[in-house]
Every structure is written in structure tokens, then in C-alpha cells.
């Protein structure tokens, strides 16, 4: 509080000859101007404490050799400059190569899970746009995966995906006879697709929720007018729905990409802490690099690089969509 009120004093002192009334008025005006900031202050302090300070500490750790020998007195860990970054960015070394591998896996995972989640959410949203009996019931049902706690939902999937006792193989192999051999879903190459499937199942209701909200803001006259002009359903989707939804989609896709890129709980719960290599997302990789090999400096360097990467992606994305909006 003291810091925010401090600037008032010099103003008051600057003009000692001013009439008392105007000074008081000016004080009141200054106070009024500061009030919103006073209200913001607690949130700002919390934001600093919860987000920015740990981030700054993370950056600090990335320049130090923080291993098990120093975790008790971590502030005394030896400074190693850019060494951690050199190791992490050396694509021909084992650490760098692994990071690059998990970056590719994460990009595939993000593109697939965001793409499919959006597609499902959009399709369901458009189909549920018109009133019909049972619409609310369907909407509620579709939202269930989003409402379930992540741990409970994902652990259930890990049971469904087991090779011998899992329901998926029971349906695919025993009932539909689609394969002779029972495939593995939790290890080997299929594990990435299992992960994407579970992630889409968890995320698409959120896309549906946002898109439904966006669709409700489209004036019905637009559809009527386009119908008069002879537009069919698909033409309406293309010419009316999609352009009108663009502002919602812009934010929705950005949020989904950031979430998927950082997703930790889905792979962690699905694979029980150690993801198979084909499904090793970058968040899991960083966790393993820091908590399992106890090299927090290396892990922090990877985290900082991930932060920079996502920051650049976000800026480029926002610039691109904003330019398109201005051009349009």
C-alpha cells in the first residue's frame, strides 16, 4: 500500500500555495485514480508469488548444477553458465536427441488431439444447434468426460486398454474378430494413439462448450437470409457458421494447443509414471530428466526452452491470425 500512495506526496508538496479546497479535491481525485490498483494489488501479489517467482527460480536453476548433492542447500549449487543448455541443445548427444524425440512426439500429439477435439466439438456443436427433444440431455452427456476428475477417468482408460483383460481388446478381438493377435495399447507404437484417444475423449467436451457458446451468439437472421439465397446446410456452415465462429476458434485453438503441449496428468496416469518411448511427451520427459535422474539444472534448462518455444509459437500464432483479421 505504501508504495502506491507514495507518489501523491510530492504532488501535494509541489504546490504549497494552492487553496486547501483544490488540494483536497486533487487528493481525492488521485485517490480515486489509485483505487482500482489497490483492488488489483492482492491479485498482483499472488500472481507474482504463484507464477512469476517460481518461474524466475526455474530460470536461475537452469544456470546451476543442481543435483542430489545440493538439493538440501540448493542456493549453493555451483553456477555452470550455459552448460545445461549446451547439453540439452546438443542434438547428437543422448540428452539432446531424447529431447528432440519427445518434442516431435509432443507436436504429433498436440496436432492430432487438438485437431480431433476441435472437429468433434464443432460437429457436435453444429448438430446440437437446432432445437430437438433430448438436446439438453445429449449436451449434458457429452460434457461428462470434462466433468470427471482426470485421475479417475484416465485410470479407467488404463484398465480398458490392458491387453488381456481390457475391454477394448475384448471388443476388437473377441467380439468383432478384427484381429487375430491381441494388440498392445499401453506399450509399443500403439501407445501414442492410445494417449491421443484418451486426450481427445477428455478435451473435446471443452471444445463443444466453447463452440456452443459461440454458436448461440450467431443471429438466426443470418441463416434465414442465407437460406433465402439458396444456401444448403454445408454452404451455411462454410459461409456463415465458420466465419462467425472465428473469434471463438482463435482463442479455443490457442488454449487447447497450450494445454496439450504441457499435458502431464494424462500420460502420467495412463502409463504409470514412465511413458513408453513412442508416447514420451515433453512434460513427462522433463519430469523424468529432473526427478528421476535428480538433475534439476538440466530439467530446468529444458523447461525454460519449452517456455520460450511456446511463447514464440503463441506470438507467431497471434500475429498471424490478427493480420488475417485485419486483411479480411
Amino acid at each position, binding site marked *: 500500500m505504501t508504495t502506491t500512495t507514495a507518489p501523491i506526496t510530492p504532488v501535494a508538496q509541489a504546490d504549497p500555495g494552492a487553496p486547501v479546497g483544490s488540494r483536497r479535491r486533487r487528493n481525492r481525485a488521485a485517490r480515486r485514480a489509485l483505487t482500482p490498483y489497490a483492488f488489483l494489488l492482492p491479485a498482483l501479489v499472488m500472481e507474482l508469488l504463484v507464477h512469476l517467482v517460481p518461474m524466475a527460480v526455474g530460470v536461475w536453476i537452469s544456470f546451476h548444477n543442481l*543435483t*542430489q*548433492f545440493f*538439493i*538440501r542447500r*540448493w542456493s549453493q549449487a555451483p553456477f555452470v553458465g550455459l552448460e545445461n543448455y549446451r547439453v540439452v541443445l546438443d542434438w547428437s*548427444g*543422448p*540428452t539432446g536427441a*531424447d529431447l528432440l524425440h519427445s518434442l516431435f512426439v509432443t507436436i504429433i500429439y498436440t496436432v492430432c488431439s487438438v485437431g480431433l477435439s476441435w472437429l468433434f466439438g464443432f460437429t457436435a456443436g453444429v448438430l446440437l444447434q437446432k432445437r430437438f427433444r433430448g438436446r439438453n440431455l445429449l449436451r449434458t452427456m457429452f460434457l461428462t468426460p470434462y466433468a470427471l476428475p482426470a485421475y479417475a477417468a484416465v485410470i479407467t482408460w488404463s484398465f480398458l486398454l*490392458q*491387453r*488381456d483383460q481390457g475391454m477394448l481388446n475384448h471388443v476388437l478381438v473377441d467380439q468383432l474378430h478384427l484381429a487375430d493377435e*491381441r494388440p*498392445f495399447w*499401453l*506399450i*509399443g*507404437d500403439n501407445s501414442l494413439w492410445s494417449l491421443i484417444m484418451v486426450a481427445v475423449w477428455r478435451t473435446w467436451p471443452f471444445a463443444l462448450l466453447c463452440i456452443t457458446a459461440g454458436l448461440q451468439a450467431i443471429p438466426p437472421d443470418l441463416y434465414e437470409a442465407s437460406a433465402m439465397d439458396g444456401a444448403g446446410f454445408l454452404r451455411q456452415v462454410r459461409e456463415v457458421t465458420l466465419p462467425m465462429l472465428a473469434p471463438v476458434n482463435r482463442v479455443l485453438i490457442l488454449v487447447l494447443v497450450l494445454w496439450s503441449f504441457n499435458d502431464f496428468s494424462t500420460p502420467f496416469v495412463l502409463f*504409470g*509414471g*514412465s511413458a*513408453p*518411448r513412442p508416447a514420451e511427451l515433453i512434460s513427462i520427459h522433463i519430469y*523424468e530428466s529432473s*526427478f*528421476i*535422474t*535428480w*538433475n534439476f539444472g*538440466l530439467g530446468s534448462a529444458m523447461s525454460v526452452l519449452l517456455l520460450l518455444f511456446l511463447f514464440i509459437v503463441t506470438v507467431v500464432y497471434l500475429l498471424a491470425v490478427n493480420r488475417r483479421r485485419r486483411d479480411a
Partner: protein
Amino acid sequence: MRLKRRSALALAAALVVPLAAACGSAEEPDSLAGTTITYWASNQGTSLEHDASVLQPELDKFKERTGITVNLEVIGWDNLLNRILAAATSGQGPDVLNIGNTWSASLQATGAFLPFDDATLAAVGGKDRFLEGSLSATGAPGQPPVGVPLYSMAYVLYYNKKLFAEAGLDAPPTTWDELVEYGKKLTTGDQWGLVVEGANISENSHHAFTFAQQHGGDFFDAQGKPQFDADANVAGIKRYLDFMAVHKIVNPSAAEYANNQSLSDFASGKAAMLLWQAADTALQQYGMNPDDYGVAPVPFEVPTPAGGRRVNSMVAGINITVFAETKHKEAALELVKFLTSDEEQIILNKAYASLPTVHGAYRDPAFQTDTVKIFQDVLANTAAPLPAVPEEAQFETLVGTAIKDLFADIASGKTVTEADIKAKLAAANAQVTPSS
């Protein structure tokens, strides 16, 4: 002042020990009464609740005798190491805690735990009370141990007597060749000769250690440098993987087992043999009658490969230690002394089907059965501690993961050669963070 009190405590302890712990409370200093300490117990029973129900009555007993209140928290294995690291970093932790004995050297290096020097050891009853084998897994050689052993365990071979009889086999295998031969006879239809916990990283690393030892392999050289991809280690691990890959006596599904599915497969007769430590409580929970299975030492490689050692188990077990930042050191050591007393060792190890770590507890008839004698014999003669180097925890994770990946490759039909194993181990080796 502190030293004086400590030696007084040691003296009191030395006087009390021969009388056994039953009457060990009369001499406690009054100042400890009313103290409250926190104890993090590891998950030894079938669930965290089971552990709490075993430990709480004992801790109540402890409070009655000493006036010290213990706040108990049972922590699952998948969380324990992270919780310990967080405690070490922040200095905010429990007073007393359990650690996997294989982590001893790694955690010792953090300096976050009280070194159990001679005076401290005397305060908890003296070094001689403990089994020597169990004491060998309490930290790096030449340094004060980082705690004392609490529960002892060893790997043994569990075999299903009924399935053995059906296959015309009257005794468990004693060599790996025999195990393969018997395994083939026992593998029919939905039933498999052996089961492994292929996606369980620590199980994998324990077996890697034993098999490598039998082939003369060490994962760290004498200077403590990692050498995961040494030829003997590759040969040992190949022997283990080949049960699934070449001899096909293990269900390929076991490659994804990480949550004790192998115990349930063994208990339900889907697999005839299992390599495990202290499985009795769990097997009975899965509905298996104790008369239906037998226990035998883990087989050996015969003929012994060049340099091979007569080791068929790691020194498995749980240690109890005191957090260095504790404000209640005396009370914490009191609890350590209580839990390692003969009386409590008998009660707790019976409940968990593990073995006492103190000589005195073995006079109880429960620890004089044939099965316990097998465990005891393994621990006394053919068990070796996992490498006592600061990077041990990394060894478990990296090698365990490499084997998990190799099992996954085998299960999906790929051929895994010695060169593949060596390459995987070399990659794991390259990820070890040097200790200094």
C-alpha cells in the same frame, strides 16, 4: 550438553537392551513426554489403510510408554521419493521416515538425513542387534549409515505345487536351464511357466542386478563409474529377457504389467512360477491358499559363467531413518529404537510377511518355519546389496526403463539381440549424471 544427553541415552539403552524392549520405558527422560513427531511410513501392506491399521496400535503403545505422540502418514511407493526430495529441498519434512534400502547411498549424498554414527547407533540399541546382511544396505561403505534396517526381504522363487504335480514335476528348479525346461512343460493353453512384471521399473532393475551378478557383471566399476553396457551385464539381462523372447515361457502380456498383475496371474494359476520378495500377504489377498504354493531359492546359472558370483537376490528391505532438520532428535531416535525392538519387529514383520532385521526377533516360532529359513539363508549367504553409490537411484530407473522398453519390443514381435541390449544400456549409461 547434547553429547552428554546422548551418551546418557546410550548408557540407558545399553542397560535396557538385554532386558528386551518390553520394559524399556522406565528410563526415558521426562522432557520427551508431550513431544509430537511425524513419521512417514512406506507402503508395506496391501494398501495404505492396511498399513495404518497395522502401525497405529503400535504407535499408541509407544505413546503410552514414552508420552511421545506420533503423527503417522503412510506414503505410497510412487510418491515416496518425490516427497523425500521435496522435504530435503525445503527442510520441511517428517522427523522419522522409511526409505527403500537401495536408496541409502543416493539419499546419504543429499546430507538431509542424520548420520547414524556409533553414538546414535548405541542410542537405538547398538549395531550388534542387527543382522549384518541388512546393515550392509544402509549407505556407502566407510561412511556412517543413513539409518537402520527395519524390514528385511529377499527374492525367492514362488511355485504353484498343484501345477507342478500336474506336469509331473516334484521339485522346484535350482538352475535356470531347469527353470526353462520346467517352464516349457508348464506352458500350455492359457497357462504360462513363469510370469514377470515387465513394465515395473524397480522389479526389472533388481532382476538385472541378480542376473548380471551371476554372469560376473557390475553396473558400477570399483571407482563408482557407471558401466551399464559391460558385456557380462548384457549377458545377464539377455538371460532374463529370453524367458519371454526365446523360450516363450512368459506371457507376452506381462510386458505391460506394472501394478502387481504378476501376483494375480500367479495366484490364479495363470502362471506357475514367480520371482518375488515377501509375496505371502498379497497372494493370500488374491485368494491363494498358502498350501498351494512353495518357496525355493532363486535358481543359479550352472555351469557358472566366467567371473560369475553365487548371488541369487539383492539385499532387499526397508530402512528407517531420521531427518537431519528434525527439532526432536531424541524423540525421533526413541521411535526408531521402539520400532526396531525385538517385540515390535516380531509384530510388524508378522503383519507384513517380511523378515525381522534384529537377531532377537528370530526366537519367535513364526520366524522358525522352513520358508523363513529359506529367506534367512538367502539373506545370510547368497544376497548382495545393490551398488552403494550415489547414482544408485538413477541405475534403478534407467536400467529398469531400458528393460521395460526391451520387453515391449519383444512382446510386439521384434527380435532383440545382444547388440540391441547393449545399445539400450549404453544410452542409459550416457544419461547418468556424474556425481561431482
